[in-house]
């Protein structure tokens, strides 16, 4: 048997009796045994396990085990998640608001490609994330003309009343003490003071100072203001003048004249002088421009 194998087997304490004899017969037997025996003298100093354990345990007691270690990273993660979720929630519930200023008109396309024309000094508010095929709803302050794509119910919520349609063209005008809905195509449902009114094409619904006003059927396809003309049929002068202020961004001083007089007529949005004449002439009034104020007086 190979010498190296024998020595290895001896080292590993794995010799059979015959192999042991063979090992003893090796010429280096004596030297190896001597070396091995003397090596035993290099034994590691006695290690008292129990004593060492006690030392370790007392050391451990001195340093309280920080049990709450996991809490702080967890809290950090929770905080980040909360912020992310909060931001997500905030942005998804955030409403889109579009408003127009004096003398400004705006065409807006809604998420379902319905169109809204906003007249001067008006505002619509809606939430694009909640704008689904099933619920279409927006808030309106001021005046707007809607061209609604066919689909589910479309709600226009105003402080005066709710206008509900399915797919049609209509105009909503909601101003102070003034609420007017005109239907140009299809059918419109107006809820005012919890009473419902159905409007067919050409019908209009007008409330002034909480009183319903009878209107004649129109034949126009679109409200005149889309063509930069404001037209009125039997509307109190005060509302006409308010509209004028909105379109030209001026102040009208008409303290000396009666404002509940009814006015039927039109004025353009393009030329302030022509517009003033179209209002003052039929009513036999005089006007004077001082800076941005227009003073109206009786002739």
């Amino acid at each position, binding site marked *: 048997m190979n010498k*190296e194998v024998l*020595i*290895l087997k001896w*080292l*590993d*304490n*794995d010799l059979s009796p015959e192999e042991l004899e063979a090992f003893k017969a090796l010429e*280096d037997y004596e*030297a*190896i045994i*001597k*070396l*091995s025996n*003397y*090596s*035993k*003298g*290099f*034994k*590691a*100093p006695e*290690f008292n*396990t*129990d004593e*060492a*354990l006690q*030392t*370790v*345990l007392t*050391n*451990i007691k001195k*340093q309280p*085990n920080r049990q709450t*270690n*996991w809490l702080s990273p967890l809290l950090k993660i929770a905080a980040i998640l909360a912020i992310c979720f909060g931001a997500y929630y905030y942005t998804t519930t955030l409403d889109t608001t579009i408003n127009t200023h004096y003398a400004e008109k705006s065409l807006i396309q809604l998420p379902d490609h319905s169109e809204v024309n906003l007249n001067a000094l008006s505002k619509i508010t809606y939430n694009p994330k909640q704008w689904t095929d099933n619920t279409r709803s927006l808030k309106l302050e001021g005046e707007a003309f809607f061209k609604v794509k066919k689909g589910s119910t479309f709600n226009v919520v105003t402080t005066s009343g709710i206008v509900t349609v399915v797919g049609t063209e209509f105009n909503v005008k909601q101003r102070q003490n003034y609420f007017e809905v005109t239907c140009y195509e299809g059918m419109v449902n107006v809820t005012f003071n919890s009473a419902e009114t159905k409007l067919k094409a050409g019908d209009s619904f007008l409330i002034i100072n909480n009183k319903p006003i009878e209107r004649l059927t129109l034949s126009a396809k679109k409200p005149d203001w889309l063509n930069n003309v404001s037209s009125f049929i039997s509307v109190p002068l005060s509302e006409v003048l308010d509209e004028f202020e909105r379109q030209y961004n001026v102040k009208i001083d008409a303290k000396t004249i009666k404002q509940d007089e009814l006015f039927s007529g039109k004025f353009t949005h393009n030329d302030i002088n022509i517009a003033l004449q179209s209002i003052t002439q039929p009513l036999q009034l005089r006007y004077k421009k001082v800076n941005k104020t227009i003073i109206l007086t009786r002739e």
Partner: protein
Amino acid sequence: MSKQLYKNICDKSRFEAFFKKHAKSLHSFLYYKFGDRLNPEDKTQEAFIKLWENCKKVSPDKAKSYVFTIANNLMLNEVAHQKVVLKHQQTKTTHQTNLSPEFLMEEDEYRQKLEQAIANLTEAQRVAFLMNRVEGKRFKEIATLLDISTKAVEKRIYGALKKLRQDIDEL
């Protein structure tokens, strides 16, 4: 791989059992590798304290190699390779009365040579060799303790033996 009974050894009784099982072999490992100058006992205890502090992060099957690595690093941090000195514990020879002075001298000389030769071994050779010769550990046990193969243990121990004999003859 055996299924782990515990997720960690943060429990005190589990920790104590683990300590009793491994502290001694860790201590001799450190002693054989680095000698007694660097206080292997302290390093052993320190390594186990570290294990307790991090007990949640160390799984039980990694705990043994964890304390060995920590203790080893603690040693290495302290000194960059000082010469290893192992003290030969004088074997009691009182029962032998008929020793000639020449024999005693010869014995002393041999012991010194061996001391130097062992210091000249590589760390790996010395650790494996002394674990085998002094502690009487078999190859397989040493292999598990050092996380190496049995073949590697064989090689180290046989290499150590060869080198020691050669060195002693030369000295």
